[in-house]
């Protein structure tokens, strides 16, 4: 970091350029291509439709649609070509997280109340023997370009697509990433120095790109967009100091707020063009 700027010219708490284009998949009810810097993810939401195939274990109850979600990672998304099959760990994990997020968004009477930071405690509105479950929402996610923050981008894309698909959502969910270790410190250094933190030089980087993630790891925080910002999930793949967790989550939450504002604005803009919108 030279002169307080990162390699791509950003400051530690600056997000990359966000943009969202709607209607990219014409046969979908709602679709968008969400771009965060050089990471681009396309999401398409179809539904609700009558459920296809046999009843595969109740995951939705009477009035709430079941969610089918699939993530594909295009082989040309990274600088070095890499094929990620259906059983790839990253993809399976991402699919599960996205699926439970969408289910919570649709199941809004229950999910966002009293949820502890770790996950979805009350996502399970499982109808036992719910052969009445008749509708299903299909979500397809395609990762076109991956330059760090892929998980966050996926969440944001799915939220935008679901919102413009005219589904009844409880709240919007956005995500942001942050490096869990202050820049300039190796894990050992963080362990040694505790109070002697030099403000301005050692900082956690918000919305890291793939180069920064390969050096410092990434923590992805998912929160709701409403005034009372609630954490939906928090995921970190690398080691970090427990004291750093609070600062990291706070930094991320700030990023999520900015993204939330952007998402809201862009959805309102788009809906303003295609429908009449009233603000509550």
């Amino acid at each position, binding site marked *: 970091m030279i002169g307080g700027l990162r390699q791509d010219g950003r400051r530690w708490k600056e997000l990359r350029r966000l943009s969202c284009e709607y209607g*990219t*998949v*014409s*046969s979908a009810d709602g679709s968008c291509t969400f771009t965060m810097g*050089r990471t681009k993810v*396309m999401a*398409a939401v*179809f539904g609700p439709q009558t459920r*296809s*195939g*046999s009843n*595969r274990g109740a995951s939705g109850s009477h009035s709430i649609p079941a969610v*089918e979600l*699939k993530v*594909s990672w*295009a*082989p*040309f*998304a*990274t*600088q*070095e*070509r890499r*094929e990620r099959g*259906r059983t790839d760990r990253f993809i399976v994990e991402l699919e599960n997280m996205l699926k439970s997020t969408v289910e919570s968004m649709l199941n809004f009477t229950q999910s966002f109340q009293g949820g502890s930071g770790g996950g979805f405690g009350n996502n399970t509105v499982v109808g036992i023997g719910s052969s009445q479950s008749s509708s299903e929402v*299909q979500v*397809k996610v*395609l990762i*076109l*370009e*991956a*330059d760090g923050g892929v998980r966050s981008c996926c969440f944001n894309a799915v939220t935008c697509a679901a919102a413009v698909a005219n589904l009844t959502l409880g709240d919007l969910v956005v995500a942001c990433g942050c490096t869990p270790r202050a820049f300039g410190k190796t894990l050992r250094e963080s362990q040694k120095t505790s109070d002697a933190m030099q403000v301005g030089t050692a900082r956690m980087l918000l919305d890291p790109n793939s180069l920064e993630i390969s050096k410092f790891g990434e923590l992805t925080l998912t929160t709701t967009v409403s005034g009372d910002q609630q954490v939906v999930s928090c995921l970190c793949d690398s080691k970090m100091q427990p004291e750093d967790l609070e600062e990291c989550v706070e930094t991320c939450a700030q990023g999520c707020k900015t993204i939330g504002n952007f998402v809201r604005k862009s959805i309102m803009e788009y809906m303003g063009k295609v429908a009449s919108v009233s603000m509550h």
Partner: protein
Amino acid sequence: QQPAPRPSWVSVMMASALEYFESGARENVREDGRENCMFRTVVVERGVVESAAGSAQVQVGDTKVLCGISLEMCNPVENKPKSGLVEVSVDVSMARSIAGSSWKEYDKDGEELANQIKRLYVNGDESSSEPGTLDRDNDLSIAEGQSVWLLHMDCVVVNDDGSLLDALSMACRASLLDLRIPKFEVLETSEVGPSGPDITIDEDPNSFWTLDCSAVPVIVSIGIVERNWLFDMSKREETLCRNVLSFGVASGGVIKQVKSMGSANVSYKVMNNVIEAASLAGKKRNVL
């Protein structure tokens, strides 16, 4: 001439849709108001994916297809020491509805499409030593016998409204035109080590080769209804049409390959007309 008797699989509901489609074809009016010989608007955008060496997005009506090319160095095939290699993959999961866990079905779908596209570039007969369409002047070789470029063409179908093969082949061709092959230097030594000759790749993004794509064919799919032929069919038309012929046509109208899918018989006279029509259409498309 009486229309061919309908096969037994046509259900009652299908029957009226089929009748609508076939009578439209006879009158030269299709569902969306086009004439039989009219194509939908084609939009080609190059360089859409930054991380790929070459990429393009093609939109034919509502059908949207993306193609990205990645480069890799590898050993050549034994009987073609100077020829590069081409691998094609097609991902249709975005455009097909998720029905249980029948992933195998779209994998198969994707593979079939990929094989068809691949045949445009690589001769099906592996034992022949004829170069593929990209290799006329051994464009893809790095060090003869040791190292050649392997092109990975990964296509993604974003939306399927018919004419998939056409759109895919156009996207592949456009990305080949967009492709940048980095310049390299082969260290000339009399001794060649076990891992092959030393090759240095020029990292400068502004120095690159582009491929000569004049021999690259494009697919033109034509549906046949009795004595009429339809270009560029939409998804609905494709499901109702009993005979579809796909031609791989290079610039200059030369037909490279034909694939036929259909259940009814087509008269010989019609076939001749269709072949000519495909050739003309291919010529036009290759100008893009």
